[in-house]
């Protein structure tokens, strides 16, 4: 890299330095808002400097440098970790029944159907509605179509997360809410 890449070097150093400061902040016996803020600010500054130098490409490169620095710190932590016998977690995820518990197969299949095929259908609906809304708001055809292409996976992931953390009644309300949200765009020619 030539001298024109100096801001990118600075961004990389800021990112790696931010990781170092956070490493220090999180090793303190008590929470330190000052050190925490300094670490995150350095990482935020790395993003700003990298973006100013070469946009998304610069941010991607600076992020890789920052992550590599974190891996080095993690490697040191792993290599120097003392022997120990801390108690490991027994938190129950509730995915499969314990011995003697009913299997609740119908409930599990119902959850799968709501989150996966129905979730996909609702995510597609959200994507189509986003495209319609984008056109109605004057985003332009390219932006509106690309928005739909991203809203489907992102919307489905968020929806899956929310649905899996809800009771059955709340799941149905969430799905209905999404459908109602999309209805004006889907049932009319708005945004076509």
């Amino acid at each position, binding site marked *: 890299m030539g001298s024109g890449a100096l801001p990118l070097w600075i961004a990389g150093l800021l990112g790696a330095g931010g990781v170092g400061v956070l*490493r220090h902040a*999180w090793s303190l016996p008590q929470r330190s808002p000052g050190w925490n803020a300094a670490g995150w600010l350095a990482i935020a500054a790395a993003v700003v400097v990298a973006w100013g130098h*070469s*946009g*998304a*490409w610069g941010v*991607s490169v600076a992020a*890789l440098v*920052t*992550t590599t620095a*974190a*891996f080095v*710190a*993690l490697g040191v*932590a*792993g290599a120097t970790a*003392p*022997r*120990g*016998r*801390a*108690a*490991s*977690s*027994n*938190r*129950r*995820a509730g*995915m*499969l029944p*314990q*011995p003697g518990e009913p299997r609740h197969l119908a409930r599990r299949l119902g959850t799968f159907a709501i989150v*996966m095929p129905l979730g996909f259908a609702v995510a*597609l609906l959200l*994507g*189509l509605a986003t*495209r*319609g809304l984008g056109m109605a708001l004057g*985003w*332009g*055809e*390219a*932006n*509106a*179509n*690309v*928005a*739909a*292409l*991203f809203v*489907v*996976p*992102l919307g*489905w*992931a968020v929806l*899956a*997360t929310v649905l*899996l*953390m809800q009771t059955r009644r709340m799941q149905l309300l969430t799905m209905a809410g999404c459908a109602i949200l999309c209805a004006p765009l889907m049932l009319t020619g708005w945004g*076509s």
Partner: protein
Amino acid sequence: MKLVPSAATVKNALSAHAAIGLLAGALLYLVCLSGTVLVFYEEWQRAEQVDAPEMTAIDAQAVQRGVAAVLESERGKPPTTHLYVHLPVPELPRATITTDTQAVHLDAAGRIAAPEENKWSEFLYGLHYTLHLPGVVGITIVGILGMLMFALSITGLLAHPRIFRDAFRLRTRHGGGVGLADWHNRLSVWTLPFGLAIAITGAAIGLASVTAYALASRYYGNDLEAVYAPIFGGEAKPDTAPGPVPAVATALDYMARNHPDIAITYVTLHDPMTAGQHIQIVASPPRRLIFGEYYAFDAAGRFHGTAGLSDGAIGQQMAASNYNLHFGNYGGLPVKIAYCLFGLALTVVSATGVYIWLGKRRRRGVYEPRLLGAWHGVIWGAPAALAVTLVARFAFGNAAPFTAIFWGLLVLAIVGAVLVAGRRAAAEASIGAPATI
């Protein structure tokens, strides 16, 4: 102000995290593993055919001669709909022409040198892109896995409120599942920006087909091309009347005169040798995430305009950046090495997740030796099967049945591991010894 989720939220998030992790399970592991190896796609292709002609650049007239020679070699056969010329770039310094029915390397003078032999790289590409399942089904399933990976990131953060505070604590020498959980959590949190980028871009690529069908159905009268036309540019109207060999050299000369600093990666001929043919050049501006800008030329090599991937609507630039951000081919070898390292970390995260879940059940007294054996079979069988396919490539050549070898060995590894685990558990039960993980 502290943003700490409630105990109920944490519990629900952990359940959701486990549910998604087990649903994605082995397939997500395979996609992570194959993606990690696929980072070096160009390097694998070079290793597969070390005697293919290589060059740092190729003359425009040589490309013209190569195109004419390939089109001549297909005279009398069904006409190809597209012809792609891959031009030498630092990662893959070869000139290769691909049509609907063949792929050949050119030498520096533009003569046809040898058929392309990169079946193992294509096998690997197929494993990562579609899990070797047909067309839209395969790529959609991989897209769903990307979506689930994104959901795993969200639920993982919610389920572990101390995940940032503990981000540098890696108790590698603690037994009983602590070390394993630390590896899983630390690698997850530090690969979070990378993992999110990979998950979102992968999900967008994978689910694009179905989404585009839906968009075409709702807004474009089922015209799928019309969905992509505003983003990547449209195809010209076909005219099947015969035409001459297109003036590729004239188009390349135009690029050399007007854009000398932009690396040309591909020349694409649409409907070659017909009256409706046209030339498209893909060129990558430096320090950009986009895979390139499309430069459109007519058959005589006259410039008509660009698609706007480099300077058009933000959506166009985003769509064009998706591929490079996912595959890590935007910064040479250093970026590829970083992608391989972090890809490996994601592979470890996907492998350890199920081990952690099985370990917790074991500590609560639920021991499932066959399930554990099956997971061992996936985790160790997949890289072993992949390695065997690579050995087969160099031992038996380009025509070895890589897909059958890989999936056959993987199934064998899983079944074998289940049987061994079952027998071992039965033997231990008969002597009253506790089984160990």
